């Protein structure tokens, strides 16, 4: 028997080993940039070096053939280097303007849409879903594929008032971020408990502690230690499900989609904001989620047609007011739009300022 190999704890790899030489040479010395066309950035360094970046969308969940295809394109048309953005777009850098068009053609003919720059709708940042997570109520890649098909034009053009960043989350509590538009799972029924399994697989105190509203308590069921849920208190968040899979929260019919708008991470102009609920009860309808797609498009077009240049979704709504938002998008306003969680009173309109 040989000794097991010990890991080399090398940490975050050094990017300079792989970076395009022009980026390396001009590291920290860029002067300005412009965008010759959607999908293309042109950066100029203090020393006069110029680099053109062509950005393209990918499916994020890539097979090795796709990755190798991108490599082949990089070798033939883009000097052998590439980088990825947080939103799974791929960027190729070239050292002269005349290399841009052939690169675009190579990408487009291989099915990679060129775009995602400036005031466009970039790729949706998304999560794992049925493909790989252990707690999802919906898929992620499929929702994103359906939506990006529908918003293809908005990815390949820069026709939005400002950037539109969309996110999805396939459970109610976790991985998706704030978005100008966010499409998230929203459960509507308390977990259904498989009492036979609870005693075998769950650490009961940990599950009890997990609940944000203290709705779970230990109980004896059929003579076995289990848990029970106060269904009046339960807010159907699903937080108990990851530590205790027998508390099944996912429901093919009652786990719905909800749409939120006006989230923003940047501190640009306005401070970062959380997205706000605008629509819920939307069926979780694979394989193409048409109901959710329709609402997203409606919101997107209302924004596109009405916002001023550089207003992000949330800033636009801040200006026109929520009544006008619901009017323009023809979405109903219900009691569920009014927050009742702690600290929520600050979300009420404490002024005589109303919109007509």
């Amino acid at each position, binding site marked *: 028997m040989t000794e*097991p*190999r*010990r*890991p080399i704890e090398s940490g*975050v*790899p*050094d*990017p300079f080993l*792989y*970076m395009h030489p022009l980026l*390396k040479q001009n*590291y920290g010395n*860029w002067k*300005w940039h412009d965008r010759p066309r959607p999908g293309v950035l042109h950066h100029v360094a203090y020393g006069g070096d110029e*680099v053109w970046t062509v950005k393209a969308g990918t*499916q*994020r*969940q*890539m*097979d*090795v*053939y*796709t990755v190798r295809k991108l*490599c*082949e394109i990089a070798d033939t048309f883009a000097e*052998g*280097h590439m980088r*990825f*953005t*947080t939103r799974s777009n791929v960027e190729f850098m070239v050292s002269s303007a005349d290399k841009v068009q052939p690169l675009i053609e190579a990408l487009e003919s291989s099915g990679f*849409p060129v775009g995602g720059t400036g005031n466009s709708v970039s790729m949706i940042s998304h999560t794992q879903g*049925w*493909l*790989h997570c*252990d707690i999802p*109520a919906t*898929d992620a*890649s*499929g929702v994103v594929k359906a939506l990006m098909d529908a918003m*293809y034009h908005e990815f390949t053009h820069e026709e939005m008032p400002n950037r539109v960043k969309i996110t999805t989350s396939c459970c109610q*509590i976790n991985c*998706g*971020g*704030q978005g100008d538009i966010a499409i998230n799972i929203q459960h509507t029924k308390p977990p259904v408990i498989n009492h036979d399994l609870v005693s075998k697989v769950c650490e009961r105190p940990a599950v009890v502690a*997990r609940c944000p509203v203290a709705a779970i308590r230990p109980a004896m069921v059929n003579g076995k230690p289990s848990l029970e849920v106060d269904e009046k208190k339960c807010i159907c*968040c699903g937080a108990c499900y990851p530590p205790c899979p027998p508390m099944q929260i*996912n429901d*093919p*019919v009652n*786990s719905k989609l909800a749409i939120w708008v006006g989230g923003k*991470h*940047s*501190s*640009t*102009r306005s401070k970062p904001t*959380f997205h706000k609920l605008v629509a819920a009860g939307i069926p979780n309808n*694979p*394989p193409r989620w048409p109901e959710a797609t329709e609402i997203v498009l409606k919101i997107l077009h209302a924004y596109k047609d009405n916002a*001023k*240049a550089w207003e992000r979704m949330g800033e636009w709504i801040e200006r026109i007011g929520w009544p006008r938002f619901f009017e323009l998008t023809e979405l109903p306003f219900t009691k569920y739009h009014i927050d009742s969680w702690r600290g929520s009173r600050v979300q009420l309109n404490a002024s005589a300022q109303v919109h007509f």
Partner: protein
Amino acid sequence: MSKQLPETPMLDQLEGGPWPSFVTGLKRLASSEDKPYAPMMKSLLGQLERSYETRKGYWKGGTVGVVGYGAGIIPRFSELSEEFPESAEFHTFRVMPPSGMHYDTEILNKLCDIWEKYGSGLIALHGQSGDIMLQGCTTENVQPCFDELNELGFDLGGAGAGVRTSMACVGAARCEQSCYDEAKAQRLIINSFLDEMHRPSLPYKFKFKFSGCANDCVNATHRSDFAVLGTWRDDMQVDQEEVKAYVAKNGRKQMIDQVITMCPTNALSLNDDDTLDVDNKSCVRCMHCINVMTKALKPGKERGVTVLVGGKRTLKVGDLMGTVVVPFMKLETDDDYEQLNDLAHRVMDFFVDNALEHERTGEMIERIGLVNFLEGIGVDLDPNMVAHPRTNSYVRTDGWDEEVAKWEARKGAPAKAKAAE
């Protein structure tokens, strides 16, 4: 007889349309008859189709790892292993990418070679925490696959109650807005927390993110416990000739509507000669005007970072934004970078000692109050840490005079130091 490609009428509907289709990719892998992963991927397609039919997930966790590490592999066992045996084990590697996610084709092809040998051929570039996610490996292949990845120069990222994989924006490599060396800060800090990443034993997860300016392209403010955002302290750089050129080209109306009036603090004014007047004391370094006038305006020269602590997603108390803990820290010399790293370690130590189990930094600060947190990490108060002072009179202020004395002492200190020069 090789296994048949399963019928997938629902997934097939995701092959149409102009956006690249992950389903087509899955099928390519499943029909690579000469590759070891073809049966696994056929089986996976079958299970995924089942999820589409029933709207249910079928993965459960477990324990799988590599020698020496307690994190980095996400175990996945199928609940439908009898029906879909070849993908019964389908574990994920979380692998840290180079800062800024730069690659050359050689390294990516080598990564693919290893993954084709041991895994499913399915790669996510990248996960939302920034990992290269290699999805679909049998328990048996995890160790040899890791060994080869590791020899190639890659290391596993975080999972569980540990330091997680981090992200840095493209920043200095190709963005003129960048106010510090994001990759340097990221590698310095993360690589000094590898023990906390690879052998997780914190109260809960801890995330670092690095954005070169307030545009925050890696969403650090909300999505990290420790957000490092580039900024500057002196006046922004204005090229008045370029300002005039912008106005000449785009007109005064656009200049006023899209730049002047969009400044959140009314720090901008257009002069009669079409030059720009900047009130740098009011400017909050939001980046808007600089984003719009990329040639005319630029961050100042005295650059550094603002550090925010406590951002997180919903579980358990609801989403929290990070809030300012250090309004400005200069980042130029190696020593400055060490100071930042030192701060990160003080925050981590405090978190380890004071957070409850399963509590994130933001929740901890909410529970104990910002003041206690600042005392714990040895950082002085600053009005930049609040949106506004308190509005509620329910507070005991009997220590007022001592607090005032502290403030005076601190305020006096730099002035005295200057006078002594």
